[in-house]
């Protein structure tokens, strides 16, 4: 589904991704962990198409297409979704109107008729239940004045509405209380299927108890330095990143 080969990217002359290799197959859940500033969000942003980053090398294939050639909006319409680490507040635009525009643009891209008001409402109600989000929140300006947890839940709601093939969740668990964490994880688990995949960026093993990953990778200093199964996450939780950093330094020396 997604094949990243030797991906390198920089921002303002600063190399951040220094050769990422990663393959994700349909149905799989991959977790990416790693210390602050290691490049996790950068990887997520580059995949989603943020123009601030300059890709200096490597390739990304998504469902047979050269992902790096597509505009951000076409990436989304092809089935890529990024749940932002820091969702943007947009005054004056309600989540409902925004998501309706997004859903219908995607349908148009797929050659489908736009949803009418009733159809849209029905689907929206279902997905709202899934992430236990309130109507009043969705009629407010997008993310404006939302609590941290509400913003994250809104991201998952949007994901549910757009039904992506590959969803990248960038620290969607950060700042969530126990109940919200369970709700978000439930939302993800209900969307899991054999043709959908997830890339979950997290700092906490806790989330991986709910969303059990097939693979865990450690991103450090712009590279994936370790890959393993969910046991790797447990080991990191126990020992911290120092042992990995030490190993990497030794290898480089």
């Amino acid at each position, binding site marked *: 589904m997604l094949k990243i080969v030797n991906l390198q990217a920089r921002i303002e002359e600063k190399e951040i991704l220094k050769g990422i290799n990663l393959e994700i197959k349909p149905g799989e859940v991959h977790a990416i962990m790693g210390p602050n500033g290691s490049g996790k969000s950068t990887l997520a942003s580059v995949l989603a*198409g943020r123009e601030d980053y300059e890709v200096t090398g490597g390739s990304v294939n998504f469902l047979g297409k050269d992902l790096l050639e597509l*505009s951000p*909006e076409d990436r989304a319409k092809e089935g890529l979704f990024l749940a932002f680490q820091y969702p*943007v507040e*947009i005054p*004056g*635009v309600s989540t409902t*109107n925004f998501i309706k*525009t*997004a859903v219908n643009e995607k349908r148009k891209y797929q050659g489908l008729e736009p949803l009418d008001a009733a159809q849209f409402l029905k689907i929206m109600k279902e997905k709202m239940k899934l992430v236990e989000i309130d109507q009043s929140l969705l009629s407010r300006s997008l993310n404006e004045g939302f609590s941290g947890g509400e913003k994250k839940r809104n991201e998952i709601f949007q994901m549910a509405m757009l039904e992506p093939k590959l969803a990248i969740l960038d620290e969607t668990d950060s700042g969530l209380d126990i109940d919200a964490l369970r709700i978000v994880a439930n939302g993800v688990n209900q969307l899991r299927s054999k043709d959908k995949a997830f890339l979950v960026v997290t700092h906490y093993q806790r989330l991986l108890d709910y969303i059990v990953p097939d693979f865990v990778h450690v991103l450090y200093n712009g590279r994936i330095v370790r890959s393993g199964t969910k046991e790797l996450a447990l080991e990191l939780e126990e020992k911290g990143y120092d042992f990995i950093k030490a190993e990497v330094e030794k290898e480089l020396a």
Partner: protein
Amino acid sequence: MMDATINIKEAFEKTEGVAENLAAFRNENWKVFSGLGLPALKHEEWRYTKIKNLFNNGMVIDTEGSAVDKNFVNQFILPGVASANSIIFVNGRFRNDLSTISSSKDILVVKSLEEASGDEDAAFVSLHLGHSQKYHADGINALNAAFAAGGVYIKVNKGKAVGQPIIIYSISDSSDGFRLSLPRILVNVEEAAQVEIIQTYINHGGGQSLTNEVTEICVARDAIMHYIKLQNEGPKSSHTGTTHIRQLGKSLTHAVTITLDGEIVRNNLNMVMEAEYCESNMYGLYLIKGNTLADNHTIVDNMVPNCLSNELYKGIMDESATGVFNGKIFVRQDAQKTNAYQSNKNILLGNKSSANTKPQLEIFADDVKCSHGCTIGKLDKDALFYLKARGISAENAQALLLHAFAIDILNQIKNKEIRTYVESLISERLSFSI
């Protein structure tokens, strides 16, 4: 006197003797105009707005009333407000014969300014007509005043609420050449009266036009006055207009100015607060493209204590359009406990677009709360990316953000029909619909 105004002089002389009651006012102002001439760029108040260059010898001025009928007028009536009070100006002259007053006479009185200055309203007219000149002592104001005999007088009687809005249409016919229209409006909102006044402008005929208008509105104690100015004439239409509002007693005024098109558009809006506990709200949206210049100059004059004013103007400049905002707030020495808030926000879309914004606060009292702020920027990149990352096209993402930017001004239009209409104009402009 410069050459470019020879035909204006001819027109003035032609209308000599037509007005009896207003003859002195006319002559006095013609003298002022002749003395001052048209404001040049070095005039501080007109430095961005090259109004003088528009004037030329080919300008056509109506001196006796154009031969048009109601059918001609009907094509310009705004959607959804067919039962409103329609006051019609054609080529700058009030046309009683073409106007439709749906409210009853004991609520609303509409007559020519010349008539009003000779009957029971004469004292009011002589007291208030021309008051705006205290704030705009320039040739543009005086030029309008010299032709005031073609104007209208509107009175909302004491304690009455006008159920239907008053819509003043200024129609300029530019098919015979560069049309110069000089509409003059004096409104008397009596004690505890309530009214909604809407002004809009039409350039018919495909030629150039300049509407130089003065609207003076007096609002008495306990009255509520809502005002909307809607400008969407077209790229060959210019406008210099002053809306001068005096709050003579504790009252509420609310003004919304929407500018969507034009060549050179200059709006002066004055709120003169002459009684304690007045409230004024001033909102503006200029959404312009092409070579349009929209220049909004506002004045809030706090003459007495305890008044409140809120002001928010927003601009979106596409292509080579220019937005100008100048907001003056005067707080006189006696005007303690004044609350005055002002904000101007601009978004530049076009590479050649620009914005000039200048708050001008002159505060002579010490116990006041005044704030002002202005921004000029581009659309928020992070917001655009967020929308695009959800599959929304770049064009729609931009439209969504611009609509969101404009919406707080649109929401200030209290009249539902007019709001719906303006929204449709804006959605069309932004190619936006959800």
